[in-house]
């Protein structure tokens, strides 16, 4: 590992530390006659900042390469190898933190907490994949995200889910995103990291519950492709939207589709859209009315869910340690709770005024009230749109990848006959030179 680096830093820091401790006026130590010298406490340094920058560079390179493989090279095997590399580097070597998914929270917090400011590297970790997606679709998910990779590896027996179930389940990801942002903004918790199911595998270490959770995910992942990415990942939610408007898209076929239907079942993530037919006439007016109704419903849903989010304040705000403490103290003071907890003892030890604690807690709660409105409103909006979208229809004549949910894994490429013919052509353009052993027999003949 990087022990030498540690040592150098620790030396530097131990010097630094001595200066600190001796700078303070202090009670003189015993006057040792035996010439004993006090050892100075060691302070081994953390992972160097330099490495963070290296990581960022590697991330950029990885994204670039992945994009190339997905859009130009179009070889599943190559993408797979890339994926393994990312898993090893970002996962096992770098132990997963900070990952772009978690970076959502850091960036959010830096906006709401003046005391906290997000490091540039983290910001880049957050932004790079988004920007790439904006232009080259979700190559990040394909071959850079270690969480995606670990799930993709265990996908053994893909079973396709019906679309309705998929879109229903995906709702959770939006709620998760809203919650994550809310809790990060209020400085309560980083729930994405708290409940990250795979990082403990990458660290080969972690609390039992999370290990179990991760195991469950991988188990499900054997049959349902990338469950976390599709139904839970809050970052994926953002990527979906950006991917819709990305400049270069992942295409199943290298040139025009011949509707051979061979690729139909090739996608384990249900991201292949089949050509549409004209809408049945008998349904036309009905659906039109429905659409209008749903559009009217939109603001209602937004407001009602906003309201729900706000009245949820007493529940959500308890995620914040201060509020929990205030509640506990209140219970103890009002004799509704017996005994004390470590937290309440610690608080009393500080000798702070209880009233101040209450006011602080109330302030936080009110913030949760407002945050609840926004988060809830967002969820409401999402639901409304999810209701509206199926009622809109676009004409599609070819087999296309659904840009929102396509993870650019490249599985479908090989199912396309055109792809193969293309590769064949490529082969023919550069024919293999065969080395022929020049006729020995003749010469022998001549010798005769």
């Amino acid at each position, binding site marked *: 590992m990087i022990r030498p680096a540690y040592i150098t830093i620790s030396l530097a820091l131990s010097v630094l530390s001595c200066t600190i401790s001796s700078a303070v006026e202090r009670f003189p130590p015993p006057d040792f006659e035996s010439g004993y010298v006090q050892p100075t406490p060691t302070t081994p340094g953390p992972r160097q900042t330099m490495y963070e920058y290296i990581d960022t560079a590697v991330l950029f390179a990885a994204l670039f390469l992945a994009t190339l493989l997905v859009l130009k090279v179009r070889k599943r095997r190559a993408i797979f190898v890339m994926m393994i590399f990312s898993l090893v580097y970002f996962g096992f070597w770098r132990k997963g933190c900070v990952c772009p998914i978690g970076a959502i929270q850091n960036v959010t917090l830096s906006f709401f907490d003046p005391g906290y400011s997000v490091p540039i590297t983290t910001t880049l970790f957050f932004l790079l994949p988004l920007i790439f997606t904006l232009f080259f679709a979700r190559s990040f998910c394909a071959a850079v995200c270690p969480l995606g990779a670990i799930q993709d*590896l265990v996908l*053994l027996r893909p079973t396709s889910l*019906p*679309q*309705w*179930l998929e*879109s*229903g389940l995906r*709702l959770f990801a939006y*709620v998760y995103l809203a919650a994550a942002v809310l809790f990060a903004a209020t400085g309560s918790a980083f729930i994405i990291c708290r409940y990250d199911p795979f990082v403990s595998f990458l660290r*080969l*270490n972690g609390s*039992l519950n999370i290990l179990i959770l991760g195991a469950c995910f991988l188990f499900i992942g054997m049959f349902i492709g990338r469950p976390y990415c599709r139904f839970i990942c809050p970052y994926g939610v953002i990527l979906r939207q950006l991917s819709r408007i990305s400049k270069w898209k992942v295409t199943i076929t290298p040139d025009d589709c*011949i509707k051979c*239907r*061979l690729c139909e*079942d*090739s996608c384990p993530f249900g991201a292949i859209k*089949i050509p*549409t*037919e*004209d*809408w*049945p006439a008998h*349904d036309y007016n009905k*659906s039109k009315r429905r659409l209008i109704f749903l559009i009217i419903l939109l603001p209602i*849903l937004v407001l009602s*869910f906003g309201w*729900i*989010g706000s*009245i*949820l304040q*007493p*529940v959500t705000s308890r995620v914040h340690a201060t509020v929990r403490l*205030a*509640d506990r103290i*209140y*219970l*103890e*003071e*009002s*004799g*509704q709770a017996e005994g004390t907890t470590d937290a309440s003892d610690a608080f009393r030890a500080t000798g702070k005024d209880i*009233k101040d604690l*209450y006011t602080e*807690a*109330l302030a936080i*709660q009110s913030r949760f009230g407002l945050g609840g409105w926004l988060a*809830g409103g967002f*969820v409401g909006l999402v*639901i409304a749109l*999810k*209701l509206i979208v*199926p*009622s809109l229809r676009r004409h599609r004549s070819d087999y296309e990848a659904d840009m929102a949910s396509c993870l650019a894994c490249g599985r479908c490429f*090989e199912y396309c*006959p055109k792809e*193969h*013919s293309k590769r*064949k052509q490529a082969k023919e353009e550069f024919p293999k030179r065969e080395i022929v052993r020049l006729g020995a027999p003749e010469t022998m003949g001549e010798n005769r």
Partner: protein
Amino acid sequence: MKIPTDDIHKASPLNNKVTSQWYYTAVTTAVIGGVFFLIVLELMLFNYFQRTVAEPKRADKLEELKIQLRQPLNDSQLLSHIQELDVKSIPDPNQAKQLKLLKAEFPANPQDQQLLSKIRNLYMQIRQNNIRELDLQIRQIRMRRWDFSRRGSYLLLSGVVVFLIGIKSASAYKKKLPLPQKQPDKINEQVRKAIYARWAVTVGLVILGSGALFLATRPWIDLTTTDTTATSFPTMEETSQNWPRFRGPGGLGVSNYTNIPESWNGTTGEAILWKTRVPLPGHNSPIVWGDRVFVTGADPNVRQVYCFDALSGKLLWNRPVKSPSQDTKPIDVFEDTGFAASTAVTDGRRVYAIFATGDVGCFNFEGKELWIRKLEVPDSAYGYASSLAIYRNLLLIQYDQGAADDEMSKLIALDTFTGRTVWETKRPVPNSWSSPIVVEVEAQPQIITCGDPCVIAYNPTNGTEIWRAKCLGGEIAPSPIYTAGLIIAIEPYTTMVAIRPDGRGDVTKTHIVWKSDQITPDISCPVSNGELIFLLTTEGFLTCCKTTDGTKIWEQELQKDFLASPSIVGNRLYMLSEKGVMYISEIGAEYKELARCQLGEECFASPAFMDGRIYIRAKNNLYCIGTTD
């Protein structure tokens, strides 16, 4: 253009034959990997449970041993231990040998101190050895487990990797050609899909919404209810100008006002300022602070606190005292007592009420619930009836219940701000119905309580007992009073006792000034103006005694039933009969009746006297009597 399918088949790398021997190799690799993984997992789980279950036990044992080692042994204990000690169990052989020898040697000369100390030392050493052994063992195992789980995780990983490689390549070899199924009719298909999609989202919507609402409706702590006027409490003067508790300031039944009406009539409405119906019954007396009048009422299920406007008689608010714990099975109380016999108390900031069910509630004057406490349901023969008292920030509850020997009785002090118990003192008495009073003796506050058999004084600051006098018996309902430097306590039907409250400890012998045998009340309290004490029995037998020695001056039959306690206003005695007739008599050398005033409704509760007004709680109504000008 169209490509013939066989052409595809040739071109496609998907078209591998399953028969390739690599396939089987791959499968076996996968199996090996998988099995290995499972085995390691097995071991790690075992390791984990060992660490969480087995090790703590061993560690506890170690702690035990350490504690034992610390405890001093006297000789007999030592010897018994030695006897129990099995020589074979000692790891160190020569210690075992020594012990054998000493054991053999001891019976010969048991008086030999030197020998004894030898044994002691040896035993000490043995125990120390055990501890050291065990300690070492524990720490070794702990470290081993750490290392194991560290390595184990890597093994697990490698297992998984092998498994995946195997299975992946196997599946690669076994790839099938895509065989598109026959397509259903696409038109309806896509319509159906759209509908399903909408329904799925709708279901999600419902689940989210209902779930959130469910969470939101769960009870939660509202930090805004902690009001800030908490620490302040009223001055003596403030208190004396109001009627803050059962029988007014100090609970003595003496009004500080003299401008009290002397004639009224409930039936004609003469001098009745207002009359308001009280929703629920209760034998508790009204208490008054400023322009607020409080009474409580209850039935077996509901307990309520009422606040009336003193000027108009309007019911300002009515708040239920809900039990925080749901398991309140209806209790049965003596019907004449009811569920709200205890009079509430106020400190001018908040009002406090207790009910026969043991529920205590606190509200501010605006009727905002500040806290609710649920004491255990009192075991009282006729139902709990003692009224509340207040000292500074302490709400005092005389919680006498059960028989003397089941030690359930206690005096409880709650923090008026939070409702949290400040202190609690056990009382050696059975259930009683008397109410505590707080008196100042030599600038030291005392809580005076009556019970069978003791009058006990407590220190309000910490609930410790100051003095006790063993002088009462029977079922004690009358409350004590403090007059002319004496505590007057009543034993029903028979005796009245006067105690000097400046004693310490048991003052039965030393501080009882006099005992006088009189026909004493069994329910109502005595009242005194300093020189004279008046006793009024339920049957209407009125006795007047001297405060100095308790001797009777005169007595009088009123031939009426009285439940309310008599009160003194100026030089007049007010006595409210059960029929609702107020007997007003002059205090003097003999009984001299001044007036009888009809209310026309049954009365059980003692009235409250304020500036120019009397507040009477009758059976169903609350009356305010006074002159309009």
